[in-house]
């Protein structure tokens, strides 16, 4: 057991862990871990005086005693032409790809938890969509966390070659009903020229667990990336999603839906870089909060000099189902080009009283009316998930998590 701290005594602990858990593997991977560990020690743990962590208190994580666990991802689907598997199963050709790309998008600098993930890196999930490949069925990656007090470091690398088309679903869950474990996950997605990639991430960790996730993607010329981040579980969830639109005509659509109840906390950070002209990005992150839960959304859009005709939209509607919830939401636009269109908007509101009355005036129960409205609110995000089985499953999961809202006041 060890505490997650960057202070010297813990660094020694990590030394021991390395030997015991992640000591094996090719030289380059050992080197990767060592570098990540130095970075982790250098960065130190974030604290609330840092801008990026101002609204999220990681004290419960810092206070915890964790035992690093091996990652055991379940990978299925894909179909013809798609290579999926774990690092330990990868042939030489795939290994070379991993070696060239791993960590090049999810830079650990300024991201201590990415460094932590790297320093304990063991298994890696790999999805390779070769040039021109059209994945017949979605690739599903399922991460199941270890027992209570485990420290899990899932790592995923998705490589889509030119014109490749594919859908990847990545889920995070835990069997430990009490939770208490900690997952620090990192996923990197490379979308080549004219690719069409859909990535759906479902966080349904156990109630008392901690989840810190990072997704970092790069889209080349004419490529399209659609991401959907659905956060349903964990006591504390921090999600950093970054996309670099690196080639002209690239686009990304990012959807998010988070449901929080009790005293749970979800912090979503997006960072979209428009590096070149004529790219489009759209973000819609929706929150449904009840009880005493809190949520953060910070949407950052960076338009680099010369990235003319950038078209960027961002919105963060939040539905508060109780008076004791708190939402911090803010856009951060950094625009260094003049011919651009950037919009942003956030709303924080309760169930629409007029809509509730309309439904009730047709004979529908207040509770049912409330549920319909909340489902409708979430539906805008879920409807865009193109895998029918996943969409249906999420719809019922979301419906099952909705509190019984009493519309009788409306």
């Amino acid at each position, binding site marked *: 057991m060890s505490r997650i701290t960057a202070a010297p005594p813990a660094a020694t602990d990590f030394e021991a862990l390395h030997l015991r858990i992640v000591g094996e593997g090719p030289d380059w991977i050992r080197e990767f871990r060592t570098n990540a560990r130095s970075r982790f020690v250098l960065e130190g743990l974030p604290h609330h005086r840092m801008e990026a962590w101002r609204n999220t208190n990681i004290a419960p994580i810092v206070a915890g005693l964790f035992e690093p666990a091996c990652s055991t991802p379940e990978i299925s689907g894909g179909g013809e032409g798609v290579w999926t598997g774990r690092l330990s199963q990868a042939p030489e050709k795939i290994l070379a790809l991993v070696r060239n790309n791993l960590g090049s998008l999810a830079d650990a600098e300024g991201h201590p938890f990415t460094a932590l993930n790297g320093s304990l890196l063991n298994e890696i999930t790999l999805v390779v969509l070769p040039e021109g490949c059209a994945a017949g069925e979605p690739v599903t990656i399922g991460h199941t966390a270890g027992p209570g007090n485990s420290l899990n470091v899932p790592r995923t690398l998705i490589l889509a070659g030119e014109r490749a088309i594919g859908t990847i679903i990545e889920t995070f869950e835990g069997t430990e009903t009490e939770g208490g474990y900690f997952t620090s996950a990192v996923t990197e997605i490379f979308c080549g020229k004219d690719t069409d990639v859909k990535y759906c991430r479902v966080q349904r960790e156990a109630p008392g667990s901690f989840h810190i996730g990072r997704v970092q993607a790069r889209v080349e010329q004419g490529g399209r990336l659609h991401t959907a981040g659905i956060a349903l579980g964990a006591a504390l969830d921090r999600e950093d999603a970054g996309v670099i639109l690196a080639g002209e005509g690239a686009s990304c659509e990012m959807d998010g839906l988070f449901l929080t109840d009790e005293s749970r906390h979800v912090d979503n950070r997006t960072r979209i870089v428009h590096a070149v002209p004529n790219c489009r990005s759209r973000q819609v992150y929706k929150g449904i909060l009840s009880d005493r839960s809190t949520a953060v959304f910070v949407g950052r859009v960076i338009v680099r000099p010369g990235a003319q005709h950038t078209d960027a939209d961002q919105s963060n509607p939040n539905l508060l189902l109780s008076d004791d919830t708190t939402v911090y939401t803010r856009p951060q636009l950094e625009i260094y080009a003049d011919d651009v269109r950037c919009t942003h908007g956030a709303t924080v509101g309760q169930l629409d009283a007029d809509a509730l009355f309309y*439904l009730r005036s047709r004979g529908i129960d207040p509770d049912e009316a409330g549920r319909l409205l909340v489902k409708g*609110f979430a539906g805008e995000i879920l409807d865009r998930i193109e895998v029918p089985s996943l969409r249906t499953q999420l719809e019922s999961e979301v419906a099952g998590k909705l509190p019984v809202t009493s519309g009788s006041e409306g």
Partner: protein
Amino acid sequence: MLSVKNLKASIDGTEILKGINLDVKAGEVHAIMGPNGSGKSTLAQVIAGRDTYEVTEGSVTYMGKDLLELPPEERAREGIFLAFQYPVEIPGVNNTYFLKAALNAARKHQGLEELDAMDFLMLVREKMKIIQLDEELLHRPVNAGFSGGEKKRNEIFQMAVLDPKLAVLDETDSGLDIDALRTVAEGVNSLRGKDKAIVVVTHYQRLLEHIVPDYVHVLADGRVVRSGGRELALELEKEGYSWVEQQTAGPAETRG
């Protein structure tokens, strides 16, 4: 069927309905006219059970029941339908799903068997023909992005499916083109029956040519200031409301 007695209602302490009397019997059609802001929609909403209005005095009896005691959903299940002046857009809630839930809530309440998907679809098809509602609208979220006229048609379509005993139509004719007006009127007329009643709120005599009322009431400043037969609507159209207002001072007589 419906008996409103000395009804007073206010919002945020401002009195809007100042003692309404209205008596509607089964088989009758009543028209309510009156200047903007006179309280027509307020009356309609109070009948439907909107609780943003506080009823401070008076009573509303419906089929022998104290209506004001019932929450809106129960009023609907007992057969009251309000076609809203401004139908509400509900993104993400499918029109068909919503209507089926509404219909089955009423059927359950009335001790009838709930309709399954097949029977419901057949009913919907039949009513759609009468109202000439574009089928595509059924698959969209309730009223979301509907044009003004489409929303009004959707209200009448819902009414046709729910088959209420007492329908209150709040300016359902506003915003309709001439053809739509006729179809909506036909839809309303097809609902007429000796055990049913209809209250139409309108500004225009034109609708009343299609839906011929038995009684016309003029509402001004929260009171029924004049009641009469259908010819009253024609007079109003000619003379305007100022004519009624001049004629009337003090508490109004009613009959309906």
